[in-house]
């Protein structure tokens, strides 16, 4: 049975949907589009009409949110807890201060010097989500950025929704490099090409791995970069300093039980820097780490 493939763009990234039976693409793609649109409306910090923007504007008070946003914030807080704050949703103000204050397509590639202050972000422990009432409490001065986890969560949710719509077979959803698979995999698994950027074209010479379940996510400092006063900046903020991470790894890919966990681990590894190898091996997370010079290290079961 030929694979069915459908491409597009969503959440400012490339979107690819692949199904094991091309006849089921008509059911899968609308389900994916619906979920991604819902996540965008709930979690975007660049849309004035998004729920997240409303929560950020309401900092200092409690805000009632949808089940989806409550889940996304809960997922982000879980990411922070499991990484001891290396992946922290309260980096919103720090990302803005570094110059990433509008949709990335509108961020000038170069510009005048800006003042950057080394200061830890406010911290995820100050954010609360009351499950019973779906009320989010955000202290004044804190701004949430769910970018690190919301896209991966969208991939997981979209793949699950697509599989439910299809009723049979298997599906892969790749959203900006965050890859989630659900259902029955093709006989040889889902083949995923590794790259610094999710915008890279498919390349027969590139490293390719195979998964049958869960997900793969990649975080990289080589994308979403800009320059201010001659200094290169990027979008992955180290919550301990409030500045772009400066570790030795430029790109980290992780395979995990789902795309969200893979994304959490990949981002944490970029922020953690030198200690990332031990951190990932301790958690038995297969990973591929690329250093600034292009050297590749594969650990915890990642194929050589």
């Amino acid at each position: 049975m030929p694979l069915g493939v459908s491409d597009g763009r969503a959440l400012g990234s490339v979107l690819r949907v692949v199904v094991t039976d091309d006849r089921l693409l008509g059911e899968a793609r609308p389900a994916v589009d619906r979920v991604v649109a819902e996540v965008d409306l709930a979690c975007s910090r660049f849309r004035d009409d998004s729920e997240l923007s409303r929560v950020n504007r309401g900092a200092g008070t409690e805000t009632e949110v949808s089940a989806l946003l409550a889940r996304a914030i809960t997922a982000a807080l879980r990411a922070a807890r499991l990484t001891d704050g290396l992946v922290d949703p309260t980096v919103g103000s720090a990302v803005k201060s570094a110059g990433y204050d509008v949709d990335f397509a509108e961020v000038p590639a170069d510009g005048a010097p800006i003042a950057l202050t080394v200061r830890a972000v406010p911290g995820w422990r100050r954010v609360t989500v009351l499950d019973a009432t779906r009320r989010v409490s955000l202290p004044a001065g804190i701004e949430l950025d769910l970018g690190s986890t919301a896209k991966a969560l969208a991939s997981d949710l979209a793949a699950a929704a697509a599989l439910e719509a299809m009723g049979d077979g298997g599906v892969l959803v790749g959203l900006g490099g965050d890859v989630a698979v659900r259902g029955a995999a093709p006989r040889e698994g889902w083949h995923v090409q590794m790259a610094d950027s999710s915008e890279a074209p498919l390349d027969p010479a590139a490293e390719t791995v195979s998964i049958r379940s869960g997900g793969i996510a990649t975080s990289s400092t080589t994308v979403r970069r800009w320059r201010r006063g001659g200094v290169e900046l990027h979008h992955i903020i180290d919550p301990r300093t409030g500045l772009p991470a400066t570790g030795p790894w430029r790109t980290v890919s992780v395979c995990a039980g789902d795309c969200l966990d893979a994304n959490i681990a990949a981002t944490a590894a970029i922020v953690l820097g030198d200690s990332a190898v031990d951190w990932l091996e301790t958690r038995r997370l297969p990973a591929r780490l690329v250093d600034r010079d292009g050297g590749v290290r594969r650990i915890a079961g990642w194929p050589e």
Partner: protein
Amino acid sequence: MNGTKRTTAAADRDRALALRRRLTSSAAACGLVAVAALGFLAEATHAGKATAAAATTSTSPSTGSSSASQSSSATTSGSLSSGAVSSGNSGSATVVSGGS
């Protein structure tokens, strides 16, 4: 005569008080043993499971919208879930995983 009766009554009272103390102590000891035994039995047969508090950083997912109800197991897990990856065939990739 009256003195003998008073002595007898006092002795009876002392015996009665001593008996009451013994009964009270025995009842208390039996009660403690019974509570401990019942506690042990309850723990052994209904151990239960710890749950997170409802507030603050709860790990329970909310549900409601159609997409939110599509559960991802790791969203609620207390640790990062591991995955399995193997070598793929170069040239057969269907998707790229990279930064975005």
